[in-house]
């Protein structure tokens, strides 16, 4: 049961049960689909961008507790952040989730997911929403530069 708590912290169970920003968005600026080939789970991410800022963000889809909680916390953390900060957070998070080490205190509530790094097969779960985000950001980058 101790092992268990390490990965499935209470906060994660809560986000799994009541995911935040778990809804369709009509007036999104960009959206992207994510897919975890290991399990077949899918996720849709919607972002509304105002200038350089993420003014709204939401997601839909199926997935395990880890992927749902990760997506849910991500949306909470990103709402209102600048795109540059979102990029930074992606890097910090990916770093934490693969190494288990927190090298920046700019990680917020995402800290509850530290335990995941011990389970290689679950790292992809935690990264699903984030990789989808990254796709969007890269897309947006491209749009920005070509404008």
């Amino acid at each position: 049961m101790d092992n268990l708590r390490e990965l499935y912290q209470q906060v994660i169970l809560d986000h799994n049960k009541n995911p935040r920003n778990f809804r369709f968005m009509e007036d999104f600026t960009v959206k992207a689909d994510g897919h975890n080939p290991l399990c077949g789970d899918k996720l849709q991410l919607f972002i509304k961008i105002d200038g350089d800022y993420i003014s709204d963000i939401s997601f839909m889809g199926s997935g395990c507790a880890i992927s749902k909680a990760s997506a849910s916390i991500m949306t909470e953390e990103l709402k209102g952040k600048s795109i540059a900060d979102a990029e930074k957070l992606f890097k910090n998070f990916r770093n934490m989730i693969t190494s288990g080490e927190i090298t920046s205190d700019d990680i917020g509530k995402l800290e509850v997911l530290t335990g995941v790094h011990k389970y290689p097969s679950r790292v992809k779960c935690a990264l699903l929403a984030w990789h989808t985000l990254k796709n969007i950001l890269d897309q947006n980058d491209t749009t920005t530069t070509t404008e």
Partner: protein
Amino acid sequence: MGMNNMFDLYNIRSNFPIFNQPDLPPLVFLDNASTTQKPTQVLEAVNQFYCRYNANVHRGIYKIAEQATEAYESVRDKVAEFIGTADRRNIVFTKSTTESINLVAYSWARKFLKTGDEILVTEMEHHSNLVPWQLAAQHTGATLKYIPLNKSGSLDMSSPERYFTKNTKLVAISHQSNVLGTINSVKEIIGYARDVGAKTLIDGAQFVPHSKLDVQNLDCDFYVFSGHKMMGPTGVGILYGKADMLETMDPFLGGGDMILSVTMEKAIWNDIPYKFEAGTPNIAQVIGLGAAIDFMKNMNIDSIDSQVRMLTSTAVSRLREIKGLTVLGHENGIDSTSVISFFHKDIHPHDIAHLLDTFGISVRAGHHCAQPVMDKYDLSASVRVSFYVYNTIDEIEQLISGLQKTMEYFR
């Protein structure tokens, strides 16, 4: 323990080192459809080879090379007898079921199929018995058709004339589903195939580990299975093929041992089965497989069958008692054993598998390399438990209590 448990389970488990590691937590291994554990007898046979007569086969005339050749070739006889053929030339050693199927897809299907021909599979296949035929169809212009799956867990054989036509040239089906545990009526299907003049390949990866096989009685053209799912080492598979089929086929891999003579311009193929065994074979693994077959014969294949059936039906009943859980297949009137897939209405299969692991219980979550089956049930994944002869009723109780704790935890 049930009445029909004719095993001294303690004694069986004592043959498997992995269940007897004093410094490790006890292992409740319920992922036997993926791979099975190995008894000492198998490990010993492999070690004896490496420690006493390790040499390459077929070419050396010195003592240990002759010994290695004899050991390797005697397993061919053993396999032949085990699956019910008198002709050792029917038995080709490969590295896995997957390679066995691909061998037929390359050397038979790509040679003989053409546009308009049909390959018939089922919606129940493991990817290994699906993707090779998709590739072969693409390559030859043949069409891939399939017998659909009923939600009850069996094949929809209501109108066979729709699937078996004069264009059907090959029927490739699994003997038993690795997701549902359903055993298909392959004899009937082979009959339909024969009626339209189609050849047949049966994927017995799940069936052979716990059931008596008689290829001569089935009268299929090809039959394939894996050593590692029947207590043998990883890295060895079997292809049974009728001699006249194997004779007409092109070789698969080119190289040493599969030719009689070679000049820079051309090669003359060796006789079957050697034509299909190019390069240094998986000698130690084949020898280990031989020991696994001996072990199975000692236990008696019918006893293995009834033990696994007893465990399966007990588990199905116990799982069906749990609210929120749905077991796929295993309906009345469907012959099924060894493998059980289920899902919970609220908890993701991977979370269930993960929690069970923290309780020391190994089960599988995912699509089990059979996505079309998952699609059928509108699932992306299920939890799968699968039994082998060393599992116990007590382990089923641990599974049930683990599931209950999981549901508690996720409430």
